């Protein structure tokens, strides 16, 4: 047997959240999303569909976008997690967040942090990025308010301004 496997057992985990190392004992059936909200109080990470469809709970897991509702806490053990709160420094908005703000890319705000995190790979990419590529990068994230145009605008302007 490779470890304690009883259903009551709690796992000892060490996870870095936005640069801060946290150690905790967590029931094995918790998802990363549940731990972030209930223990870290990272309420910016939203609990939407629980099945990986809506994207509201998207975070970076070791630098890559992941749906935190579909990650067991044991899988996240040892990882670096970044949420929208970790994007800017010293309480300032980063450039993508600023563009969301100035382009009215957020209305109710429920999808916003997931959109910000899902856009990270396309914003960081050095390739030529057109609107279709941006839409492809964001197609796993649902927004029921904006109609998406403003969100794509915000991502596109961030990419263009970084290239200047």
């Amino acid at each position: 047997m490779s470890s304690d496997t009883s259903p009551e057992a709690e796992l000892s985990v060490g996870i870095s959240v936005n640069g801060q190392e946290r150690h905790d004992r967590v029931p094995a059936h918790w998802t990363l999303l549940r731990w972030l909200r209930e223990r870290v109080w990272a309420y910016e990470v939203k609990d939407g569909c629980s099945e990986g469809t809506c994207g509201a709970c998207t975070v970076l897991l070791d630098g890559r976008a992941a749906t935190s509702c579909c990650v067991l806490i044991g899988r996240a053990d040892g990882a670096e997690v970044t949420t929208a709160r970790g994007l800017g420094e010293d309480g300032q908005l980063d450039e993508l967040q600023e563009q969301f703000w100035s382009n009215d890319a957020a209305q109710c705000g429920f999808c916003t942090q997931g959109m910000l995190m899902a856009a990270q790979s396309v914003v960081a990419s050095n390739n030529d990025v057109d609107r279709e590529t941006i839409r492809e990068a964001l197609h796993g994230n649902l927004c029921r308010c904006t109609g998406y145009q403003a969100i794509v605008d915000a991502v596109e302007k961030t990419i263009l301004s970084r290239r200047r």
Partner: protein
Amino acid sequence: MQRFAYSRPESLDEALADLDAGGEDARVIAGGQSLIPLMNLGLAYPEQLIDLSRVRDLRGIDAADGQWRIGAMTTHSELLGTASEFSGLIAAAVAQVGSERIRNLGTVGGSVSHADPSAEVPLAMLVSDATYEVHSGDGGSRKLPAAELALGQYMTSLEDNEILTAVHVSGLGRQRGWGFHEYARRAGDFAVVAAAALVDVVDGRFSSPAVGLAGVSDAVLRCEAVERHLDGADPDGIDEAVAAGLEEIEFKADAYTSSAYRATLARVLIRRCLQDAHRRAMESLS
């Protein structure tokens, strides 16, 4: 989500030992992108999970003599980065899996073992005549042709004490043309119907075609009758061969999609795959 016993083995032997000890209540979990949603929704409630994410031997892609071995825990994103070197068909299929964040965690072995009848990766492997490497808790191992894995929806021929550890597939020869098309209701969804084709072209005619469908019955399907009708036909004969070859397939219906609509999608998507495959094969010859 209900509680479950949980272990994170660091080697394949440990994982097999845990699985053997757990009996029929134990399941392995790979990337979790299908199983965790089912558990979140209360549709699956395994009593014991053996998490393979720390088993390093199961990751990575190796090549030797035109044969590729894809470790079961290789993520879709990792495969997407390499697949175009050996199979345009597999690259195209993997690119259609979910969204980027699902591809970052979801694995090749998990996808084929989950045996979703609408899934793209099992379809690509079936049409590519892939072979699955399977290890069991009693120390044995076997090779399983892709066509013998899925028995039905989410059901496979894997025994309770077996783990699918790798996919073996031949690189496409330069002259082999491929096509992949699917129709899904929203970007990133499972396909309503997906089609895949691999062909050789000799004197302008199809030779040794391989054609498959996902989403039309309770498992991904090789369309052997289409292949028979197509062998030796030229591109003008595609419609006739496909119509004749699909006659004996019973297309399933569900709340969203009728049987007749699935049949129409299948015909159109296979035609597009074969046109693409023929063109790609001709381009490689010129």
